[in-house]
């Protein structure tokens, strides 16, 4: 294999950011034509930086890039696309009010100010592309009305429409449901059959195992190794990625649940469009128990969490915490009564990215006496001490307590949220998507911590789109479908088939 000439080679790439951070330390990768090449690493390992360099978004500090036999220096993404390299980012770059068609031809058709755009021809070309790949996208609907999975396809089409030979996908499955992931993989296989080269960036072992031909693992800005996927095992890749064997199964001792801490009675909640998102749910969470809610995203889980966390109106029904009616109470009251909430969207809700690490460390508890001085002003010394405690206890990698929290990697941001919520000393913890987009080591840490809270007799409500997570952690679990529970089961007494049926709306 090594005798072939690679279609793309990045040689000894070094990237030092202006603040002195060494993101890449001499990384070399080779990608061959027509393969699906995996780039595996934890959050913060340098995967995205490397690809941004390839795509012309960042300038390497040192190193060379060879593409189709000659050295290239891309000054911008437009440069890279013109040479045949396209990228689909983790966060989409679509104009929300434009239709799919408008988004795809944006910047490609009709250059001069008054030149006419040949919509008909563009549509025909796109239709051919879609037929070849056997996937369809509604071309005339504004993008904001389309599900995430479709939006991603639009991004892919956008690149294919520009005739790229190499397609970079940055964590493409992070936002997708399991079914959408399967569909994406089908598309990728077809593209490969057409001779396209695909670079698949991920930190999910199973996906890399399933879809890639070869995989290069990077860790802390260095290449750890490259293997043929057929020779690899998830355990091997995990070891390469984190430098030790990751316990992929959580150790959980049996634990006897105590009295009921949290209870919901016939809860109805409306969604943003006025639809009934939660339809008459009743359940309870006991002390020393993790109650999991699984299900395909968008079945009312978000609305349920927001309603019980005081962020959305309850239409009907009651919510109780330790026997007290807390329906309609505001977040501040709820926190003071012993609720903590790890929100599903850490960048838009759990943290204020522009504010410092220590300012974020007191979000939702800044009013507490322990952070005030004698003048009732915020005592930043105490706040900083608190932030440092969180950082130490949860082994958070942070450049400093006064730096903006956005300078932390995703996994460390999430750990900070978990640390902060736990430091509220709650009786009841809502953990929504607690490990989404988080690296393997942090995921393991957070999951073990939730189990520890349970062992300390706290009540934990876990809501996650990651079925494995719910299965591993929960003592009891419910599967949510269109605002209702299809069944409440014990994870070790249920088969995958039964869960699959319930996720598809078949009540058990």
């Amino acid at each position, binding site marked *: 294999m090594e005798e072939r000439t690679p279609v793309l080679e990045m040689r000894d790439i070094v990237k030092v950011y202006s603040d002195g951070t060494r993101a890449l330390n001499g990384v070399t990768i080779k990608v061959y034509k027509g393969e699906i090449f995996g780039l595996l690493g934890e959050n913060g390992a340098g995967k995205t930086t490397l690809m941004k360099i390839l795509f012309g978004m960042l300038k390497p500090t040192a190193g060379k890039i060879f593409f189709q036999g000659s050295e290239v220096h891309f000054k911008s993404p437009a440069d890279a696309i013109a040479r045949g390299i396209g990228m689909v980012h983790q966060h989409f770059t679509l104009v929300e009010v434009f239709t799919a068609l408008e988004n795809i031809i944006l910047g490609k058709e009709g250059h001069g100010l008054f030149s006419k755009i040949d919509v008909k021809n563009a549509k025909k070309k796109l239709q051919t592309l879609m037929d070849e790949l056997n996937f369809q996208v509604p071309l005339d609907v504004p993008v904001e009305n389309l599900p995430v999975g479709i939006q991603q396809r639009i991004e892919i089409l956008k690149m294919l429409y520009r005739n790229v030979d190499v397609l970079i996908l940055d964590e493409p499955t992070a936002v997708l449901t399991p079914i959408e992931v399967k569909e994406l993989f089908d598309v990728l296989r077809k593209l490969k059959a057409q001779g396209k080269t695909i670079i698949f960036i991920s930190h999910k072992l199973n996906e890399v195992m399933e879809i890639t031909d070869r995989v290069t693992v990077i860790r802390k800005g260095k290449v750890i190794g490259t293997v043929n996927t057929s020779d690899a095992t998830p355990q091997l890749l995990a070891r390469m990625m984190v430098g030790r064997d990751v316990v992929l199964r959580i150790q959980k001792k049996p634990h006897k649940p105590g009295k009921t801490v949290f209870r919901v009675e016939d809860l109805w909640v409306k969604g943003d469009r006025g639809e009934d998102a939660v339809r008459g749910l009743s359940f309870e969470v006991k002390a020393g128990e993790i109650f999991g809610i699984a299900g395909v995203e968008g079945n009312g889980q978000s609305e349920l969490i927001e309603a019980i966390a005081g962020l959305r109106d309850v239409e009907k029904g009651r919510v109780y915490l330790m026997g007290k009616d807390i329906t309609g109470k505001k*977040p501040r009251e709820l926190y003071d009564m012993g609720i903590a909430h790890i929100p599903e969207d850490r960048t*838009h*809700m759990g943290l*204020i990215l522009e*504010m410092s690490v220590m300012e974020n460390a007191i*979000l939702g508890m*800044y009013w507490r006496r322990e952070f005030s001085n004698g003048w009732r*002003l*915020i005592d930043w010394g105490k706040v900083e001490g608190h932030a440092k405690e969180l950082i130490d206890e949860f082994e958070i990698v942070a450049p400093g307590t006064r730096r903006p929290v956005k300078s932390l990697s995703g996994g460390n941001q999430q750990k900070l949220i978990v640390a902060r919520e736990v430091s509220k000393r709650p009786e009841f913890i809502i953990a929504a998507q607690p490990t989404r987009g988080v690296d393997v080591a942090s995921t393991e840490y957070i999951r073990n911590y939730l189990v520890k809270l349970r062992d300390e007799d706290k009540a934990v409500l876990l809501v996650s789109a990651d079925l494995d997570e719910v299965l591993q952690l929960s003592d009891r679990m419910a599967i949510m479908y269109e605002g209702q529970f299809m069944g409440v089961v014990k994870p070790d007494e249920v088969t995958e088939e039964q869960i699959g049926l319930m996720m598809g709306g078949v009540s058990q």
Partner: protein
Amino acid sequence: MNLSQSLRGYLKPFTESVLAILIGVLVGAIVLWASGYDAIAAYKALVVGSVSSLTNFAQTLSQSTPLILTALTFAVGSRTGLFNIGAEGTVYFGAIAAVGISQAIPNPLSGIIAGILVGALWALPAALLKVYRGVHEVISTIMLNWIAFYLAVWLALSVFVSPSNANRTVAIPPSARLPLLMRNTTLSWGFVVAVLTAIVVYVIMWHTKLGYEMRANGYNPRAAEYGGINPKAAAIWSFVIGGMTAGLAGAVQVMGVPPSYAISQGLANVYGYGFDGIGVSLVGRDHPIGIIFSGILFGALGAGATKMQQAGVPLEMVKVIEGIIIVAVAIPGLLDLINRMFRRGRV
């Protein structure tokens, strides 16, 4: 508290502002020269008029007083996610309030309190429109400024008009005036009030729970609500605090500036400070302490302008230089460029 770390945080905006000022002075010189004036003589006059003597410097500080206070209005808004340009109209009402109350209770404190309270009240329409009806504050404050202008002109000319001089309002009685800090100048205790207010605003913004709430809400209302903050209350407070400093600016301006101690025709002696304050705030990087310094700089430009006029350069040229400084601060691309040049020099 890590002193060097926080110092470094201040150093960057400070250097950037100083660079912008230098660029303003330089480009201003080119404009002067191109318009056929003697740039060197003009700048000499500016410096002489603003800092050459204690009296002149007092004049500088006096001119900076209302600017510091109106800049605080904009800064509070800007730090809490608002583009509040309502200071202009609020200043008029602050002045009217001080004139009015001093007729009934003639002492300085009552005037100051009245200015602050009326400023807070006049902030409410824009605040409530924003919070409950989603009206953008730029639209509402611009329109409210005009309402304030004509309302204030009417109040000045009908309700509070001086019986002896139809061109101005009744004067603030001597016992209600802010005492002068220096004889034969216009520098009064108003300047001290402005500096103290800047410090109070700094403490509110960065050392109180309210400040934390307002800033958090400005960055991300959704996260603020999650964090136990009432987003509506936080937004209303940032309008109200801004209104208070602008109202105070108006009050201090009539209570502290001799000889008239009254509002002149067409609100001439309280007009324009609200808008000038935006520039002062930008150059002071929307930071209360930075605003004290940039306020003094703009005060110096104002005080020196008179001298410059005597040197044969029209008053308006000072506004041109001010404008260039503000543009220089406001162009982030330019500053990034300067930054990169600096970095290349260092590495």
